């Protein structure tokens, strides 16, 4: 008797699976990560406990995790917005750079010695710069169907090199001993930090933005439009929504949020513009947004968990001398399993036995009489 596996689409997804699938996926990822760590010659158990202890075990670790989660949550909201509309903004990284460049420029050229005024200027500059950067790709996409994945990705390199140009060239701090960085910002251009940690005022935005966008997507007319346009652009046109206008608008807002994330990172944490300014937050944000299944509130949680992984990974490098790339493998495994788990949300698998006659005993009895 042969067994055959059959895959059937689910008509409806049981509610319970909404919890079971992510948990099982995460467990499977950690398990296969353990195999991977084992082959690297370290004890998986020790590695995982190091990650947890260093990121959540004490106040310092926790604060560092939050510091990492802040830009992640903000840029994940940025990409989530465009993904909801099925516009693939892969360029959050570049938009973070543009926001930071614009914020640094406003500190350099429009400095006001007042916290609130300076914050407002930097906020606006970063938002406009990041937004415009993304809107370029959005306009090309809407007007001429130019693939936005390519344009946003390419614009990342342009933004990165633009930043390099400034920090290596005209904006380099003469006192930096040749390091590619600007002079430290004056105090008025810094976001306040709290509790003696590196947690800065960007935290409020990182919490506020997911809430705001949850409300927007769920309860507003515009949110409804975005969801309809993402699900079925044809139906959106049929209902009189302007797809072109909204693509550009959504890309602008998406880019603006990423730009502001860049500004917060710059003025809240680093205090100066420098080479290699964002640690790939724009790309990690894509993972975060997907893991959160594009749900704004879930993004908050996932950003925090991703922060755990980042902080733990750094410690792992130091304590267990694992290469940075091993952390990326772990991240990749988690993404792989969680996205793979999506399959079970949509389909179910049935195991059928083959080789038995099609007629089942009950009905053949009926025939026999």
């Amino acid at each position: 008797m042969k067994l055959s596996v059959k895959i059937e689409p689910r008509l409806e997804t049981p509610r319970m699976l909404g919890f079971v699938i992510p948990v099982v996926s995460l467990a499977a990822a950690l398990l296969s990560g353990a195999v991977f760590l084992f082959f690297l010659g370290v004890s998986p158990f020790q590695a995982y406990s190091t990650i947890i202890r260093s990121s959540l075990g004490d106040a310092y670790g926790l604060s560092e995790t939050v510091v990492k989660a802040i830009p992640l949550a903000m840029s994940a909201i940025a990409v989530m917005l465009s993904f909801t509309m099925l516009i693939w903004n892969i360029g959050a990284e570049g938009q973070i750079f543009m926001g930071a460049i614009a914020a640094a420029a406003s500190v350099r050229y429009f400095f006001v010695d007042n916290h609130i005024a300076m914050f407002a200027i930097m906020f606006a500059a970063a938002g406009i710069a990041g937004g415009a950067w993304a809107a370029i790709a959005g306009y090309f996409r809407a007007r001429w169907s130019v693939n936005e994945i390519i344009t946003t990705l390419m614009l990342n390199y342009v933004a990165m090199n633009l930043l390099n140009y400034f920090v290596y060239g005209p904006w380099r701090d003469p006192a930096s001993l040749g390091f590619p960085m600007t002079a430290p910002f004056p105090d008025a251009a810094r976001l306040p930090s709290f509790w003696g940690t590196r947690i800065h005022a960007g935290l409020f935005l990182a919490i506020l933005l997911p809430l705001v966008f949850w409300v927007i997507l769920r309860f507003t007319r515009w949110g409804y439009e975005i969801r309809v346009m993402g699900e079925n652009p044809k139906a959106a046109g049929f209902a009189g929504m302007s797809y072109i206008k909204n693509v550009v608008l959504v890309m602008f807002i998406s880019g603006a949020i990423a730009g502001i994330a860049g500004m917060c990172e710059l003025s809240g944490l680093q205090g100066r513009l420098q080479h290699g300014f964002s640690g790939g937050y724009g790309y990690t944000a894509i993972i975060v947004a997907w893991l959160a299944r594009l749900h704004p509130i879930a993004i908050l949680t996932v950003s925090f968990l991703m922060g755990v992984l980042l902080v733990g990974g750094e410690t792992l490098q130091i304590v267990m001398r694992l290469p940075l790339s091993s952390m990326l493998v772990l991240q990749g495994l988690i993404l792989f399993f969680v996205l793979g788990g999506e399959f079970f949300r949509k389909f179910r698998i049935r195991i059928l036995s083959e080789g038995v006659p099609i007629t089942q005993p009950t009905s053949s009895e009926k025939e026999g009489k």
Partner: protein
Amino acid sequence: MEKITKRFTGVTANLDVDFDVRPGEVHALLGENGAGKSTLMNILYGLYRPDSGTLAVEGRDVSFSSPRDAIAAGIGMVHQHFMLIPSQTVWENMILGLEGLPSLLPKREIRERILELSSRYGLLVYPDAKIWQLSIGEQQRVAILQMLYRKANILVLDEPTAVLTPQEAERLFETVRQMTSEGHGVVFISHKMDEVMALSHRVTILRKGRLIGTVETASTTKEKLAEMMIGRKMIFQIEKEALTPGRPVLECASVCALGDRGIPAVSHATFMIREREIMGIAGVAGNGQQELCETLVGLRKVESGSIRVNGEELTNSFPKTFIDKGIHYIPADRKGTGLVPNMNVSENSILKRYWNRPVSRKGFIDWKEVFSFARGLVSRYNVSTPSMETPVRNLSGGNLQKLMLGRELSDSPIAVLAVHPTWGLDVAATKFVREQLLAARGAGGAVLLVSEDLEELLSMSDRLAVMCKGEIMGILESPADTPVEAIGLMMAGTPAEEALASILQGGTRS
């Protein structure tokens, strides 16, 4: 096929169904949507395996695990959407998936075989033509030939006439008769009673997955069949009250528009629709009807000409302007254009009114209002749905159409453009849709009805325009009194006067 039972997650698609085809007969399979016709035929064709029951071909028990086995047993199926490769030629499609061919294709033999088969069954096609160059009717001939080429003894035709002109349908019937006279068995799936009565020898009726009965066509009537199909008496006649049309609502003057591929799709369409009238548009699908409707609601650019609504120039206005003026559109492509499949019933119900009070206030959507609106719509238009939160992709075709119809008609629109509104619907749903369109007309609305079903057009329309290749061949003022043959000629591209003259000369008045 004996005692076939097939269950899908929670739904019994077929329960103890017996079905057989004799050589040389046309056996019609009749039933509402979701009655289990397609499931039964897909089991016969090896696409599904039955949960229980047996299949036998020529007395021998068989078990198909794929269509390949079914084909080997001499069973062929022509689906509604032909499984042909557009970029390849007719002869290349003919050998698609055939095994045991020499690596160097014997093109000449294949062509000869095609020509031999096509002349024998009256299925004229040119073997070297590419599929995309062919009309739908010709493609269907290729699909049938494909099955005959595989020496199919039993041929399943799934709603074959849905895409044909009356003339083409008549030619198809000739082919079917030729096949049965040679001993082939044909299974004919259809919604159209007239065809079933005209063509079949026996009829099997399914309802909710169960076998209701198999009857000799000669000993039954349309009404009896309909009753078996839906389980209660059905009034076929549509009650249409006589109304005097009012002012023109929608006027369109010499409108030209391009199709999706940039080729002219509508050329110099001139007509108007008035209050309290239904203007029908007849024509084979793909002759510019849909493009015309899209230009009338701002979804397609008007290249030249003008569109006026209540006298106001609205050429190339935004779709929203047309909606706000009260022009509503029921597209043919329900899931693709008219609805958002992954969103739920209530979210879909407000697609055309989400910017208006009371559903939306100051940019916010009041979901309580939405739910009560959706609930009202669902009950008024008999949409059967488990809840307001069910994604509409899980609704059946009839319920999708009712939901959409309710959404478009509940505003008492000044004009409704309905494209194939009853396409693929069962008798009860069809009747409902037609009644609702008539009600819109009764309420003073102007209705444009695009359909392929001539019977529907003739019974519904006050006036009838016939389109062919993007042009309006003529507008008939009293369609019910016009010979069907003349309309057929117009659908094939003959101008109205010529068509009428040639039919009247021939003396064939129907």
